[in-house]
């Protein structure tokens, strides 16, 4: 690497392009002392210069604050992109490869995400979760707030935590998660139900779970584009209840005090909390979905309608 590029990256790492939303420009990366893979990681946030950066960072800060309260760690290091991915993508690739033993959470628009995905593969990083987050206009036939994740394993799933946060704020939403490797779910992980949701399993392989609120399983399938099936089994009327438990890792009281101004903050919280190892409502399955229709239109849907972004969680 030439010296100019080395200096540029050094500049970025020491704060030259750091932007803090209430975060000091030079901060200690949050250490994840008990990672899912057993090693020690630090966590950093990469913001892709989108209109939702500030809201996401606010949610991320809240997650860090919760984490720090028991780990005594510092705030989250935050990096702000300008237009590097479109103009000088290799600079971002260098940034990643020069931060070993680091867990990165990145958010960006779809144009940048197309390039970033390629950089992640090229530099042989480990992609734990890739999320697509969309708030659509109110007259769409689908639910106005939609999240879709491809996640390496249920152990990296943020969907359950996000569902509980969005539900308590009465959003209408769908969350669909596909897990590439069900086998690597945490051995302690159990099927769980979520307060306010009716839970269903598909009595066939691959293991598929559906959690509905305010909507029937048939309608939920339609809303998320899954094939209709007669084989959904209600957890309360025929599932193996001995293996079901209300998730104790995040009792309702812990989440109830959390209030977010909008869905993006809630998403920021859920993604960062999960990246820090505080994920909840994680189940051993191949796919699952949460569909929530409150019947009320949350005012926030209008305010942030049309916003969309992509999230990444990667280990370097």
């Amino acid at each position: 690497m030439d010296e100019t590029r080395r200096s540029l990256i050094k500049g970025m790492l020491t704060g030259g392009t750091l932007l803090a939303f209430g975060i000091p420009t030079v901060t200690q990366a949050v250490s994840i002392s008990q990672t899912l893979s057993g090693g020690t990681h630090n966590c950093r946030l990469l913001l892709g210069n989108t209109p939702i950066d500030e809201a996401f960072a606010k949610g991320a800060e809240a997650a860090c604050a919760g984490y720090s309260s028991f780990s005594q760690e510092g705030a989250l290091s935050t990096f702000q992109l300008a237009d590097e991915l479109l103009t000088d993508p290799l600079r971002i690739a260098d940034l990643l490869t020069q931060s070993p033993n680091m867990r990165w959470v990145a958010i960006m628009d779809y144009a940048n995400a197309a390039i970033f995905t390629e950089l992640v593969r090229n530099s042989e990083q480990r992609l734990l979760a890739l999320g697509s987050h969309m708030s659509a206009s109110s007259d769409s036939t689908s639910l106005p707030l939609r999240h879709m994740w491809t996640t390496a394993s249920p152990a990296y799933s943020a969907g359950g935590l996000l569902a509980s946060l969005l539900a308590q704020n009465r959003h209408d939403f769908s969350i669909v998660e596909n897990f590439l490797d069900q086998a690597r779910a945490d051995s302690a992980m159990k099927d769980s139900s979520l307060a306010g949701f009716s839970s269903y399993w598909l009595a066939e392989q691959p293991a598929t779970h559906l959690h509905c609120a305010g909507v029937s399983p048939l309608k939920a399938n339609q809303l998320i584009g899954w094939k209709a099936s007669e084989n959904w089994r209600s957890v309360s009327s025929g599932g193996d209840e001995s293996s079901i438990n209300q998730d104790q890792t995040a009792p309702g009281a812990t989440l109830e005090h959390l209030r977010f101004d909008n869905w993006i903050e809630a998403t920021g919280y859920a993604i960062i909390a999960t990246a820090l190892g505080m994920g909840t409502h994680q189940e051993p399955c191949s796919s699952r979905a949460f569909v929530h229709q409150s019947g009320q239109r949350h005012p926030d849907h209008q305010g942030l309608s049309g916003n969309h972004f992509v999230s990444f969680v990667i280990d370097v």
Partner: protein
Amino acid sequence: MTSQYIALPKGVSEETFDAAIHDFRKVLGDASVLTSAEQLAPYIKTMMPVSDAEHTPSAALLATTVEQIQKIVAICNQYKVPIWMISTGKNLGYGSAAPAERGQVVLDLKRMNRILEVDKDLAFALVEPGVTYQQLYDHIKEHKLGLWLSMPAPSAIAGPVGNTLDRGVGYTPYGEQFLFACGMEVVLANGEVLRTGMGSMPNSNTWQVFKWGYGPYLDGIFTQSNYGIVTKFGFWLMPEPPAFKPFVIQYQHEEDIVEIVETIRPLRISGVIPNAVVIAHALYEAPVKAKRSDYVSGPGSIPDEAVYRIMKDHKLGIWNVYAALYGTQEQIDVNWSIVTQAFSQSGKAKILTEQEAADDPAFVYRAKLMRGDMTLTEFSLYNWRGGGGSMWFAPVSQARGSETLKQMALTKQILAKHGLDYSGEFIVGMRDMHHIVDVLYDKTDPEQTKAAYQCFDELLTEFSARGYGTYRVNTAFMDKVAETYGPVQRNVHKTLKKALDPNGILAPGKSGIR
């Protein structure tokens, strides 16, 4: 029982696959055989309106030498394990790096990234498949070779081997990539190494300067195919011209496409305009400057009225013709006079040069591509709707105004029926037009995803019924497109496949060939 792999090749048991992985590791080492979900996740994402599960690989292999590839194909033959080859894997909108079928093993050649030769005098390069345009660009600049590349939109992160083998284009006079290919090294399914053209002759130094060799010309069968693994690739580079003059010509009405094409064709065939001219619709250029949600919300395609507002707000034509002149200043002056005279005749054209359009981001990125510079600005298309759905619809037409108008109207009508926008452009080849349409949709919306699939299927059906063939397509629709070219061609492809790859280990499904 849960598998230790995230997918398995079709018809291969886990026990057999275990044995193959064990052997791959003996050849490549543990670190170069990827099987975990975290490692494979970056290979899975596609923009097609089908489940990513249909294109999930079982493993990825990171080879670095021809000898390793020879051993890999031997293992694949032994265990009947199919591989899907990628060079840099940047086939965005055509399937990206994901295999055509679930369970195929990706053979990722990105680590084979040596620039083997760049000859300044004869203006050619010989590279390995993992070489990116950025690498080559830096090499040429560093050594002050005075040569230009001709890059597609993913420029810096893509590479010449993948782009040429999939018959992609660039935007300089050398933009028809395969026309300028000269000599390949190919590992065949039986492990033999073939050098095409003059490369087969011991001690020949003409491999990268004479394309044809002796006997049947073979290079073509290794493009858009699955007959071999290209491990070295030669191609010609354009000498940097002394002068360069990019320009844009704007028109205000969709039916003006007839006049545009009729004006360009003679200029293009005679070589007055030497590069691949782009005729971009306003909605293809708009994402560089505007957001769809600023103009329209809700379901349905964007109304014409909103398109006209975008044009007005952002100084776009409904058609924006980007081209350039190359050569000495004297040559450019003469040709500029011919171009302006031709386009000025009807009084409809607004001609802008760098002087007037230097601040226009759409013009800036087009000018960069036309002089072989790197820019990824075209990716702004993906922000138009958001949601991550994109498929390139790429029919070919004659370079006649009447044909382009028919294609545009038919495309627009089918897209509108399914609630999607016309984001299209025509790239003027020597005598053809590549009609390139980005079918953009929101993949988080199941209704729109379903509509996008049906729309693309209908586009292929309706165009082929009228004799318009598609020159390139994403992996979800390869069989359908192969079918449109008729049974005889399909049978020849199959016969060649049986002869060269009897076990069907190389990329089954590529271009519908198995």
